[in-house]
């Protein structure tokens, strides 16, 4: 059933003749069949021949041949004549072909009376089939006429008729739900039918009728959970409905018991495997399920793992895979059964078994597991391999000490055949491990270097070359990567060559020892036949030659300019025919003009007016503005930027937000101001800041005013402070907006020549220790913890009051500190009463600070916290404690 096959079968061309010469439909033509269909109009009907023609029409339809409207109408009218025949087999085919043709609303009327007659026939099968056809082709208008018969059919003593009416009810709910809702009592009666399928259809329909009435559904479910149903399909439906009710109901706070859990547990002992599985599935998907609740479900799923039925094994391992995500410890008993499934013939089952094992496996079992996976990988398709590689990445981050064996595995699979998605997943995985596990960097880079020697994907080669350029120079032996990179310059396409040139340049700039060799190699790139490669080589040669011989710095640093002003100044340069060289200083000048002339900002760079809400884009925009200002260049790189805070109420005449940018020794307040009043212009706008608290810590350095505060756009004004080292960096600043207001003359539309000075009080700004702290996720927390001096360790106990859960308490503390959680310790097991979270961060100036946070919950949900802080400097550890105690 390949695509090709599917297409060929649909067109039934010459290809399909192959091997189908025994087919009675060989060489069948739609035109000829439509001609044959004229036999339906004969006065003496040949029932057998008519059935054969209908079969041919069905075959054509199954093969994708569509009938035009005219053809369909013609066939439909001919078919209606067949109601004259009393041959029951022909009548059955007629029902089917009418549904297949699906006549239009105005045509339906032709068969309505015939079908209604059959609906009341004494022959049960006429009744059931007529109901199905009529409900299938009828519209809401006609439904009213047949409703009475349908209601009777629902409680018909013949199960086929009753089932047909109930299943049709599902369809009619979409056509006219009001009519079906009136069948409630009949459907309820059908639920007590002895026939299991009638019971199943009735339950499904009854639930759909009552689905919007929570109380009614709850009553129905309560009633059904007390008396088991005959049909296992219906029992599965009840379990599903119970799951929905449990979701909407709260756990009993006094007893801690979950409603209907006993019912679910009893279903685990049902004789039908389908019901058992359904109950187990619902239990493992319960919100905040406890280990005790999980245990019986996991036990039955474990039994299913060794079933001879693949569907049962598949369903069980899929369910256990879900359990492994949140409760890996609750299914350690299943590991042996799952290991035997790695060799399952069904690759979906084997892949699920492996990914589950990777989640539940212990550090000690990794070596054995990897051996098993290695043999399995060659047998499966790329889509399964991707899942396995992703699971291995998670495992490696969980057990960083095992990076060697896992990295080797990734390197081996990288060498094997595979498509782009698969290779990209492996490369992404190695990149992630290289960045997260410092010890794995060199091994990862070596594997990737070998990979690009024989990589058919340009995108991946470029990505790896960029990473080599970024991380290679800081390794113990950077020289060994040069050969791999320069090989790409010789052997690859232009895109990869250009990436290789950049990577080489980075080695030259960062490593004094390699610079001469890199310069020689770059010199050779000047003869490349691609413009981009030559340009890059020439640029980097000139940059590298300007770096003093003993200095090492990253070549990319001087190139960080805001892109929009860079593009504008380059365009401007190209338009002017002057002979002078392009001056990078122009970019800053242009950017300053943009900041002070907002209209130019909007028109020149097509930048839409900014939304005042603080978003990541706004933050990046603010950072770009700061880095492009010459005034702040001497402050060094930005250490941390905080999201913008509104300093004005909504719907006021001015809108001002403030973004704090922390530098090594300075703090810059970036105010974005906008005017909303059309008939005035505000000029010489600045924010006056007065320190209410923290006068001794922060000393004002400069205020940069805004020329004109724009209407509907934002303009920037800045205030910068220098921070006294070693002091607690906390302050409260009172802010006032100062400006000169000028009225606009309505007749001329021009502002008046003279204005008056005015001011507008803004909200205060707080500076906290958090502004000088940034998160630094670590994969090997313990290792770094041990390197920090124990004499700088500060311990404190705190009470966090009554909380709903430990998670809520943890979220609050992490929110205050702004540090990053390490090794997945931010995840708290459901209903846990104690937990330890590891946090890591940098204090401004690059000082490491680590925190161990032990939370415990008392009987009345009161949470106590023990905070252990270690930092490079003792005053930083004190600051963290002050920050928590004052919060």
């Amino acid at each position, binding site marked *: 059933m390949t695509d090709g096959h599917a297409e060929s079968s649909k067109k039934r061309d010459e290809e399909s003749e192959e091997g*189908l010469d025994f087919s009675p439909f060989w060489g069948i033509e739609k035109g000829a069949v439509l001609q044959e269909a004229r036999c339906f109009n004969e006065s003496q009907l040949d029932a057998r021949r008519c059935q054969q023609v209908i079969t041919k029409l069905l075959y054509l339809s199954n093969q994708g041949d569509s009938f035009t409207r005219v053809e369909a109408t013609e066939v439909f009218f001919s078919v209606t004549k067949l109601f004259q025949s009393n041959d029951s087999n022909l009548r059955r085919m007629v029902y089917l072909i009418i549904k297949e043709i699906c006549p239009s609303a105005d045509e339906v009327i032709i068969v309505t009376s015939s079908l209604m007659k059959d609906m009341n026939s004494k022959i049960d*099968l006429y009744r059931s089939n007529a109901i199905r056809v009529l409900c299938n082709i009828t519209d809401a208008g006609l439904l009213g006429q047949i409703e009475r018969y349908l209601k009777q059919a629902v409680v018909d003593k013949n199960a086929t008729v009753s089932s047909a009416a109930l299943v049709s009810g*599902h369809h009619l709910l979409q056509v006219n739900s009001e009519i079906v809702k009136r069948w409630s009592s009949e459907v309820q009666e059908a639920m007590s039918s002895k026939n299991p*399928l009638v019971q199943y259809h009735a339950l499904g329909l009854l639930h759909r009728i009552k689905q919007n009435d929570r109380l009614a559904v709850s009553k129905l479910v309560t009633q059904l959970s007390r008396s088991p149903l005959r049909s296992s399909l219906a029992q599965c439906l009840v379990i599903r409905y119970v799951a929905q009710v449990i979701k909407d109901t709260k756990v009993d706070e006094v007893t801690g018991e979950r409603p209907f859990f006993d019912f679910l547990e009893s279903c685990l002992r049902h004789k039908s495997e389908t019901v058992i599985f359904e109950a187990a599935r619902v239990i493992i998907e319960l919100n905040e399920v406890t280990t005790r609740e999980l245990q019986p479900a996991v036990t039955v799923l474990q039994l299913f793992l060794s079933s001879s039925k693949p569907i049962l094994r598949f369903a069980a391992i899929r369910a256990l895979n879900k359990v492994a995500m949140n409760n890996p410890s609750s299914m350690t008993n299943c590991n042996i059964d799952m290991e035997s499934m790695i060799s399952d013939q069904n690759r*979906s089952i084997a892949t699920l078994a492996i990914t589950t094992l990777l989640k539940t496996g212990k550090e000690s079992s990794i070596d054995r597991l990897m051996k098993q996976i290695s043999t399995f990988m060659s047998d499966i398709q790329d889509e399964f391999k991707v899942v396995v590689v992703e699971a291995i990445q998670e495992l490696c981050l969980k057990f960083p000490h095992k990076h060697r064996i896992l990295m080797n595995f990734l390197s081996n699979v990288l060498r094997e055949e595979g498509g782009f998605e698969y290779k990209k997943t492996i490369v992404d995985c190695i990149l992630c491990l290289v960045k997260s596990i410092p010890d794995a960097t060199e091994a990862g880079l070596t594997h990737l270097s070998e990979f690009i020697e024989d990589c058919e994907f340009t995108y991946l080669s470029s990505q790896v070359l960029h990473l080599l350029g970024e991380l290679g120079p800081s390794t113990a032996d950077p020289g060994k990567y040069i050969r791999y990179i320069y090989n790409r310059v010789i052997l690859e396409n232009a895109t990869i060559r250009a990436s290789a040139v950049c990577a080489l340049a980075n080695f030259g700039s960062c490593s004094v020892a390699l610079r001469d060799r890199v310069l020689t190699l770059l010199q050779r790139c000047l003869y490349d036949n691609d413009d981009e490669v030559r340009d890059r080589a020439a640029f980097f040669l000139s940059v590298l030659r300007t770096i003093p011989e003993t200095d090492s710095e990253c070549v990319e640093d001087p190139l960080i300019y805001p892109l929009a002003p860079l593009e504008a100044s380059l365009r401007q340069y190209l338009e002017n025919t002057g002979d002078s060289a392009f001056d990078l200083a122009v970019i800053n000048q242009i950017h300053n003009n943009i900041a002070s002339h907002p209209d130019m900002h909007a028109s020149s760079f097509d930048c839409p007016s900014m939304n005042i809400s603080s978003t990541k884009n706004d933050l990046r925009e603010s950072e770009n503005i700061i880095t492009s200002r010459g005034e702040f260049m001497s402050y060094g790189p930005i250490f941390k930027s905080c999201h913008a805070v509104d300093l004005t109420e909504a719907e006021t005449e001015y809108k001002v937000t403030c973004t704090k940018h922390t530098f090594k020794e300075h703090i810059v307040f970036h105010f974005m101001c906008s005017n909303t009043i059309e008939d005035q212009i505000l000029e010489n706008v600045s924010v006056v800041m007065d320190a209410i608290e923290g006068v001794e810590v922060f000393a004002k350095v400069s205020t940069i005013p805004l020329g004109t505060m724009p209407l509907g756009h934002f303009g920037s004004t800045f205030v910068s402070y220098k921070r006294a080292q070693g002091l607690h960096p906390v302050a409260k600043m009172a802010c006032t907006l100062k400006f000169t207001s000028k009225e606009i003359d309505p007749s001329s539309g021009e502002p008046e020549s003279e204005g008056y000075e005015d001011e507008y009080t803004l909200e205060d700004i707080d500076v906290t220790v958090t502004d000088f702290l940034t998160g630094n996720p670590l994969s090997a927390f313990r290792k770094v913890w041990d390197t920090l001096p124990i004499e700088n360790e500060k311990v404190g106990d705190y009470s966090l009051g009554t909380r709903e859960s430990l998670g809520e308490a943890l979220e609050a503390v992490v929110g205050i500190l702004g540090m990053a959680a390490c090794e997945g310790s931010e995840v708290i097991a459901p209903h846990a009463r104690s937990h330890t979270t590891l946090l890591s961060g940098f204090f401004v100036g690059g000082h490491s600070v680590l925190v161990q946070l032990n939370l415990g919950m008392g009987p009345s949900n009161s949470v106590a916290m023990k905070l252990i802080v270690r930092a490079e400097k003792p005053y930083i550890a004190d600051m963290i404690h002050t920050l928590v105690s004052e919060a």
Partner: protein
Amino acid sequence: RVYEARMSGRVLSVTVASASGHVIVERFYERLPETTQMLWRRRLHEASEASLGERGSAMLDASDFARVEEGCGVARHGEDCMVWCGVGDVRFYAVGSGQYDEFGLAEVLQTLVTAIAAMTKKRFDESKVFEHYGMICLALDDIVVDGHVESVSWDQIRRTAKMKLAAET
């Protein structure tokens, strides 16, 4: 649709194909564009390729037609479930969601295969399937109606396809 996906789901398609990949009978119970139908055929082919080959795990002898539920292959595409099996040189595929999961679909295939076995006197080859083409269409029409499984009793299906209920024979 949201309700159906969440609570009961539906059978998306049932396909009967030859060993060479020729679609014999195919029913989609949702109006899907031809390209989406092609996509589903490809997914089914890719998922079942290994197990429907020679001595594949989902291949059953013609005489083993009653063991579909024990031998069928299974895979998932997102929340949709795919089940397939090969009996003799005929292949059966079904796709479903929600209530019609691995178990539901395997039951559908088992019912269809058993009903066909009864019609073809347990001979599962393409010529026999083509010979009973009309009956197979009727059987499938009785098993799945508008995406809902209406009946899973193969004997009843066999009889209703011939318009003879137990009480009437």
